[in-house]
């Protein structure tokens, strides 16, 4: 099997202690209910009282998505630098690396989902709101190139505050770089499923998050290009609550399906299984 080719390496996403598991109880940010961590975890970090979805750590998302012990991390040796020598950026990154155990805001690797070999990428909002700098762009580009080379589908859970301002134009051009790699993966006849999670905005929405063959989303997530406050500032009025939600996106034709967290894995499995041999189909044409 393909994954046997990889030596077991230190797996950064598995190293970190999840915030979710640290405390015995957690207070729901939606309704204030005090929840037992264990119960909350069993409910996939969806509040049993009000239904609010907690943002997940990448490692938790991987645990909910990949088959048990099947995830092998790739490209975890990339570390963030400070190309513009932006004041405070080096320190901020260093602090977050220590706090989250991740090198930057995305974890990439290969796994099986429902027994099907898949490249999996998960962005993590706990790292600088998953803004996209060079490392995020490079890891995702490598993931798509790897998937193209090995004829594998890609499942990508997106979230992002947008571009990483501190990396200036290096950040902006990652949008083109990753989109180019997505294009080549697609031209090889391979499947790319995007799962939009809270919040997916800015440059990530304006690149690979909007390029999936199939675009899924979690319920009630914020998804948009411009920030809500920027738009409110422009038009001078408050926007309705459902503006820029996954439901809004679906109703306007930009999201295929909203999938509750407890149905995500089975939905992905079903979609992946219906696209097996897709690269072969393309070659035969």
């Amino acid at each position: 099997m393909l994954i046997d080719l990889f030596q077991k390496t230190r797996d950064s996403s598995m190293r970190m202690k999840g915030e979710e598991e640290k405390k015995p109880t957690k207070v729901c940010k939606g309704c204030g209910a005090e929840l037992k961590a264990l119960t909350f975890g069993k409910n996939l970090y969806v509040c049993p009282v009000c239904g609010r979805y907690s943002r997940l750590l990448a490692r938790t998302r991987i645990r909910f998505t990949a088959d048990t012990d099947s995830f092998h991390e790739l490209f975890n040796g990339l570390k963030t630098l400070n190309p513009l020598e932006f004041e405070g950026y080096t320190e901020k990154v260093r602090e977050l690396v220590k706090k989250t155990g991740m090198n930057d805001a995305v974890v990439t690797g290969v796994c099986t989902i429902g027994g099907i070999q898949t490249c999996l990428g998960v962005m993590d909002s706990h790292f600088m709101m998953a803004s996209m700098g060079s490392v995020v762009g490079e890891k995702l580009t490598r993931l798509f190139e790897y998937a193209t080379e090995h004829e594998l589908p890609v499942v990508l859970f997106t979230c992002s505050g947008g571009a990483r301002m501190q990396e200036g134009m290096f950040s902006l051009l990652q949008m083109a770089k990753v989109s180019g790699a997505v294009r080549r993966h697609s031209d090889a006849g391979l499947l790319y499923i995007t799962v939009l999670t809270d919040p997916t905005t800015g440059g990530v929405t304006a690149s690979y998050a909007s390029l999936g063959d199939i675009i899924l989303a979690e319920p009630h997530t914020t998804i948009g290009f411009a920030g809500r406050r920027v738009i409110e500032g422009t038009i001078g009025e408050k926007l309705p609550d459902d503006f820029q939600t996954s439901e809004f996106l679906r109703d306007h034709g930009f999201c295929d399906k909203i999938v509750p967290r407890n149905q995500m894995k089975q939905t992905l499995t079903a979609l992946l299984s219906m696209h097996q041999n897709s690269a072969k189909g393309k070659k035969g044409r």
Partner: protein
Amino acid sequence: MASVKEKLQIIHDPKRPTIDDYVNTLFDNFIELHGDRAYGEDSAICAGIATFAGMPVTVIGHRKGKTTEQNISANFGMPHPEGYRKALRLAHQAEKFGRPVICFVDTPGAFCGVGAEERGQGEAIAKCLYDFMALRTPVVSIVTGEGGSGGALALAVADRVLMLENALYSVISPRGCASILWKDASREIEAAECLKITAQDLYNFGMIEGIIPENSIMKNVKKALTFVLRELNLQNDIDEMLQKRYDKFRKIGVFQEINQI
């Protein structure tokens, strides 16, 4: 050389050439084409067919005006999704007929508004990046004034990206950066310096292929276009051209590699 502060003033000078000036001066027989064939027409994007030194080309650019009235009608060069979709429609038309595409970039950014979100601003820009990367005809892009973030990049995935000497190209407006960073939009100049957004900065980073001097804008743009179009037209192998286009963006990024798997 002008400072960033001076450049910010220069590119906002109402007398600075706009897409309409470029089209009228550098090209012959320009015929503007309208609409995205799906939703509507967006006059923040000017696009059409013309000839350049006798060769048919497709021209696409952000539109700014010289008067307030013109600027309002062009939404100050801030496109809606239908503007990007029109650009892409005409890029594909150019691909079909084997015409080079020449883009002029000058925008504060893609428009941030309710309609833009409803009609998928993010998707419209993403699709430009995705399709321009694989467009099987030469693409040249010139940043003439403001290169405002994703709204500019949508027209700047090209075989050759050039910038006018005083043009700026940034991931975020210096004003926006200052208000996020220091909660003080008036520190715009300081932010502009930190962000390294001048043509000279971008050239040193290897992000653009050339800088066009502004001692005589029209004459020099014409010269630059003639040169790069000749270079690109000599390239018979489109797959090789696309590979080079991909590699150009592929290599951008600064990071340290510890233990590659």
